[in-house]
């Protein structure tokens, strides 16, 4: 279990992470979402002890990462697949990590096979690797020590569709056997498919966290009508704030039964009325982080 408590990190007066608290539980995949510069990477760096927190704490099963006697055996970390010595071969990169953790050399070949890097590819220097191959190498390094916690920053980046499917199965399987997975990604579809729990960060602060079902259910109602403006107006009069989307749909936080009642009272025929959870993670993400989005988009 990963526990982050009241974590704050400031850089020369700029607060990158502000009073962040969340947990990633065993047996579940926790998706960590946020716009660029929201503080995702800083948070993950503090968790793995690369950056010291200004205040607050981050622990793995109650122990600070830096206090783990042999961290590689307990926590698999992949923060940046490109952060490898370009002049070293893929195999040697893993061999060094295995030696550091005190693992037998045979483990390296096992991991190379697991991530589908061929022996010929493993003999090449990392300089010549594609991003997808570096990503596979990084995942191999993270899994090398047979950890019970995985912390991955954008692991699907650069993977081909088959690779993304493979990664998804791997992480689901890992969590299914009691492992803890904390995963950050911009690929919302990936997160939506794989994550059990979600933590959304914006402007250095947690803007939402909970199970995926809870968060997506909270996204409200979507209604369509031949007269969307009148519907929105009727909802407004009934005290239900709503937004009129460009495609003619009306969204509101109220639940569908309320919207149906308002439409009936106003004499507006609805062509569609449903819970907006189908609208998915992207809308939720954009509305939750609207205040901190660079583009200023609002859902």
């Amino acid at each position, binding site marked *: 279990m990963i526990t982050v408590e009241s974590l704050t990190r400031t850089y020369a007066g700029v607060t990158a992470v502000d009073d962040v608290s969340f947990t990633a539980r065993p047996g579940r995949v926790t998706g960590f979402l946020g716009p660029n510069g929201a503080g995702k990477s800083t948070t993950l*760096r503090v968790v793995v*002890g*690369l*950056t*010291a927190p200004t205040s607050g704490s981050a622990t793995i*099963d109650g122990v600070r*990462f*830096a206090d*783990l*006697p*042999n*961290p*590689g*055996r*307990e926590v698999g*970390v992949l*923060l*940046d697949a*490109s*952060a*490898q*010595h370009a*002049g*070293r*071969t893929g195999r040697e*990169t893993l061999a*060094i*990590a295995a*030696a*550091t953790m*005190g693992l037998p050399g045979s483990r390296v070949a096992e991991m190379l*096979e*697991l*991530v*589908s*890097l*061929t022996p010929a*590819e493993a003999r090449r*220097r990392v300089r010549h690797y*594609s991003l*997808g*191959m570096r990503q*596979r190498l990084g995942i191999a390094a993270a*899994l090398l020590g047979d*950890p*019970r916690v995985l912390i991955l920053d954008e692991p699907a980046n650069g993977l*081909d569709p*088959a*690779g993304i*499917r*493979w990664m998804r*199965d*791997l992480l689901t*399987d*890992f*969590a299914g*056997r*009691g*492992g*803890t997975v904390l995963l950050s990604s911009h690929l919302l579809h990936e997160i939506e498919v794989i994550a059990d729990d979600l933590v959304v960060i914006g402007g250095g602060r947690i803007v939402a966290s909970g199970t995926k079902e809870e968060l997506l259910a909270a996204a409200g109602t979507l209604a369509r009508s031949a007269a969307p403006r009148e519907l929105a107006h009727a909802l407004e009069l009934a005290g239900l704030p709503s937004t009129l989307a460009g495609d003619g749909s009306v969204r509101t936080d109220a639940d569908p039964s309320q919207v149906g009642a308002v439409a009936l009272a106003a004499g507006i025929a609805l062509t569609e009325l449903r819970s907006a959870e189908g609208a998915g993670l992207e809308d939720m993400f954009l509305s939750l982080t609207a205040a901190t989005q660079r583009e200023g988009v609002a859902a």
Partner: protein
Amino acid sequence: MSATTVTPTTTTAPGAVPGRRPARPVATRRLVVIELRKMFDTRSGFWLLVGIGVLAVLATGAVIVLAPDDAVTYDSFATAIGLPMSVILPMIAILSVTSEWSQRSGLTTFTLVPHRSRVIGAKALATLVVGLVSMALAFAVGAVGNLAGSALAGVDTVWDVSLAAAPQIVLGNLVGMAIGFTLGVVLRASAAAIVGYFVVSLVMPGVLELLGLVREWFLDLQPWIDWNYTQVQLFEGATDTAEEWAMLASTTALWIGLPLVIGLVTLRRSEVK
């Protein structure tokens, strides 16, 4: 990506074992061995190592072919082999530290061992080992060259490096490596540290000599603050009196001790990007 097959993960995937396992801490000796390996398992490390070997043999050959008969002595061989080595060894020391930042491998290194002082300490010990082993090799190659050279030239084999001078030559090389290591710790960037090394080892002596020409009082001060001066004394086996050792201690404190302390403090806090 040529590997497009999707490996089923159910059988070969590592098990996520809940609960704590007894984990043994990473031993310091293991760290030193790993840092030694990391110095030479990269393309640059490999060629630096090859460079040392090739240059040692070339230098030996050059003395045999070019030196006049009366100069075919052990000192000539030791000097000829030692010169390229005194340039390459500090490069190895520099890269062992800076590659973690310039090549970004530190992201992995410092998460596997989240104690930077331990990693840097292991690098320092590995640097020391490399220095001692390569000096031993240099003396050995020089000895073979001296035997072969004197036999070929038909002169008596002259062993003119005293037992007292040899440790000083080794120490002189270790000083050079320590300067490189220090620059690596302070600058944490390969290019900057290598340029920095050539500035303090090639440019600075000329500047200080010039300073001594125009300001006479500086001549008395120079041995106390110019690390090149004290290093040359070591290479010549001429550091004998207590004052000369004090001068060496002074330049070492100024160029290695002080910057190393400052560098280590900033290194421990620095971001590994």
